[in-house]
């Protein structure tokens, strides 16, 4: 019974921690961006203020039930994925439902929210939203290829399809996968760049091109919920990648350190790079990252 | 600047030979003014573009000579070879303001003509794209005509901040609208009135 309540507590606390970390990272990123741009920048808790403000907006305009539910899809997807990712390696408290952290399940679960958001954006009838969605989906096909190549390479090499298995492998060999399978890691990290939607891969949301893309018609509490789920989702992706390639973490401090360093890769790339055109972004993923992925598989197979 | 006008004179000569009735005047270095009859403008533009290699149209302008009941159309051309600018002018009747379009020579003429059509009401025959340019749902006289009184129009159509035109006490009005008591600025800063 005790463990049951611990479990429930875990369900409540994990999303909160994920949200807190995600929001803080967002603030730190804004600070770092500002410093690189010769500015002081907003306070670190600025994102929290933004979200609070959006929640406290008095009106929220929607164009129908799908737009209303779109953000719910997003938050559901992000929190559910969080529940199925082993946040800390050996902690049962942070484990939640991640029996084994099945990778294929997570790959599909992550799409759930985007699909809901895309449907919500579609219902608004805004052409910018539709263009943004079209770009986003096309980009997804782009970065999924190297990512899957990388994952498949790892799955074959270590004979497992779960994060737990990969963690165990890194434990037994006591070296991270980045050292054991560098090509797969490169492909995965390059795909990660696209997954985080920082420049040069922020095509779906390009303000100068399609206003803010899918989010064009979302405001107030809808946007707030989207940002909340975005923060959690950032955390989920970071933890996932840290678990897969960088040996996971045993305590929160290590986790935060590792995820932060990983997070800086797309952020720093984004600060100094302009945005690709959609087809260029897709083709980027189909060139070198795919080649690295194939090399990774070939190394494993041969 | 007034020295060495050989090139300009040469071009002016050519124009004079081709268009006997045109008043050609070398204004200064790199400037030639040509006054043309209404019907000679198009032959002149063709001549300038094809024979004198005036490839570039800088400008089409319009001046309202209300005293003479005339509009003056000004075509300013530039040749990249000689770098001499020709200012070709013609006057058309103000009452029945119509002029054939020059859209076929330079594509951007369309925009100039759209603007002149809108602001002066000159109808450019042959330009089928004389739609609204800068104004929207304009119902008054074409605004750039000299008989259009912009002050009157703006006073009739827009709210003017009371006190703006006859320097009355602004404070009461402001107080009425915003509900805030305003300090007596006139006393504090001792401005005029």
């Amino acid at each position, binding site marked *: 019974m005790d463990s049951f309540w611990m479990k429930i507590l875990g369900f409540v606390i994990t999303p909160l921690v994920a949200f807190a970390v995600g929001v803080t990272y967002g603030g730190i990123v804004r600070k770092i961006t500002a410093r690189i741009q010769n500015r002081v920048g907003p306070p670190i808790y600025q994102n929290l203020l933004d979200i609070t403000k959006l929640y406290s907006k008095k009106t929220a305009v929607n164009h129908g039930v799908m737009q209303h539910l779109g953000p719910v899809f997003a938050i559901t997807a992000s929190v559910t994925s969080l529940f199925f990712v082993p946040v800390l390696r050996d902690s049962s408290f942070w484990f939640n439902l991640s029996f084994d952290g099945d990778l294929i399940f997570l790959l599909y679960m992550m799409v759930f929210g985007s699909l809901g958001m895309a449907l919500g954006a579609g219902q608004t009838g805004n052409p910018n939203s539709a263009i943004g969605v079209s770009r986003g989906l096309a980009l997804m096909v782009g970065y999924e290829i190297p990512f899957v190549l990388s994952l498949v390479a790892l799955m074959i090499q270590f004979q497992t399809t779960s994060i737990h298995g990969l963690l165990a492998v890194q434990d037994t060999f006591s070296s991270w996968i980045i050292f054991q399978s560098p090509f797969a890691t490169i492909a995965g990290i390059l795909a990660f760049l696209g997954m985080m939607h920082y420049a040069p891969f922020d095509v779906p949301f390009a303000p100068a091109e399609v206003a803010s893309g899918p989010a064009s018609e979302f405001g107030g509490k809808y946007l707030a919920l989207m940002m909340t789920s975005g923060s959690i989702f950032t955390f989920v992706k970071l933890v996932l990648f840290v678990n897969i390639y960088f040996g996971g973490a045993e305590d929160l401090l290590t986790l935060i350190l590792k995820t932060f360093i990983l997070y800086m890769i797309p952020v720093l790339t984004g600060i100094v790079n*302009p945005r690709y055109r959609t087809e260029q972004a897709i083709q980027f993923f189909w060139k070198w990252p795919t080649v690295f992925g194939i090399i990774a598989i070939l190394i494993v197979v041969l | 600047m007034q020295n060495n006008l050989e090139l300009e004179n040469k071009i002016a000569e050519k124009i004079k030979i081709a268009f006997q009735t045109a008043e050609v005047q070398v204004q200064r270095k790199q400037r030639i003014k040509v006054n043309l009859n209404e019907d000679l403008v198009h032959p002149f533009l063709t001549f300038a573009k094809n024979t004198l290699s005036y490839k570039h149209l800088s400008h089409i302008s319009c001046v309202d000579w209300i005293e003479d009941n005339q509009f003056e159309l000004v075509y300013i051309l530039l040749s990249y070879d000689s770098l001499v600018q020709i200012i070709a002018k013609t006057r058309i009747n103000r009452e029945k303001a119509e002029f054939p379009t020059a859209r076929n020579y330079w594509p951007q003429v369309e*925009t100039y003509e759209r603007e002149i059509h809108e602001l002066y009401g000159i109808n450019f025959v042959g330009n089928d794209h004389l739609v609204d340019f800068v104004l929207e749902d304009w119902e008054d006289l074409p605004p750039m005509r000299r008989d259009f009184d912009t002050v009157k129009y703006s006073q009739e159509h827009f709210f003017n901040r009371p006190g703006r035109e006859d320097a009355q006490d602004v404070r009461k009005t402001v107080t009425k609208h915003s509900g805030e008591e305003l300090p007596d600025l006139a006393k504090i800063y001792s401005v005029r009135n």
Partner: protein
Amino acid sequence: MREKETTLYLGPQHPGITGNMMVKLKVTGDTIIKAETHVGYLHRAFEKLMEARNWMQCFPIVCRICVPEPDPNEENLARIIEELEGREVPERAKYIRVMVLELARLGTYLLWMGGQSGSMGLYTMPQWTIGDRDYILDLFEALTGGRVYHMYIWPGGVRRDLPEGFKDKVLKTMDYLEGRLKDYDDLLFDNALFYKRAKGIGVIDKSKAMEWGVVGAPLRGCGIKHDVRIDEPYEVYDKLKFVVPTAEGGDVWARALVRRQEFEQSISIIRQVMEQMPSGEFYNKVPNPLNWKVPAGDAYVKTESARGEFGYYGVSDGGLKPRRMHVRGPAYVHGVSLLERILVGANIADVSFIMNSLGTCPPEIER
């Protein structure tokens, strides 16, 4: 009957638009089939207002025609009056004017760099360049008292002499900007992504460029060497040494290269001006501004602004007020007829990019 193509409104309220205008796009997929420029959102009827004001009262008006770079307007208006009156300008005033014009050009280019990179999502660049542009605005402030609108160039000279120590300030700023150029290169001009996005986009046909009325950097980007500063030298440009850069291709990349090189040239011009500037009077005696009659006549003067040839056609009927003052900004052609043409077949992603590279500035289209 509903149209088949999707209508996309780019502006007036859109982060991708320069200034306040609207480009109505008809698209299928993300290819533009038809583009229509709609202007008039900034129409203030300047030409009408000038007809109702004294010659000198026109100066506060003209500088508001082009907000990012007001000085060519003042220069043009001043030169129209000077030309109609035959008024001479002291040598020192000419140098000061050139300095002011070139500073304004630098400022505009910095703004352009920011806009160009902002339109493709490189947000660090505007933060740097627009921040650096403020140093130039500081110079203006010290010189004229105004950051943006200066009303500094007058018929017969300039309004004030250079303040004390101004020369050093200018040179220091120039050194700073030159030093920053390396950073800009690293971030923007040497960035492979910029090349990828800019190459082959928004191409202006070289054979059509003159006929279409293209001027300024877009024309030089087509490989045609034309610059009012050398073709019809005004002020003291014939005494200064500078190169007019050109580039081949007529695309966004070529225009960017041209502007990048002109940036260096402007710095060098300012240095020369500061070096050669003679002492002496900075203005000629002018009549009472409230009773200043300009002889009847008309004149067309032009200045090379940062976006291209800036022309003024002025007519005086010998009275206190201008009879007609017609402004021909470079954006007039670039922003309407040229933009509508080269956007056809382009990608939605490139609209704002192309617009920035042409230097579209709505206030000077509609005035």
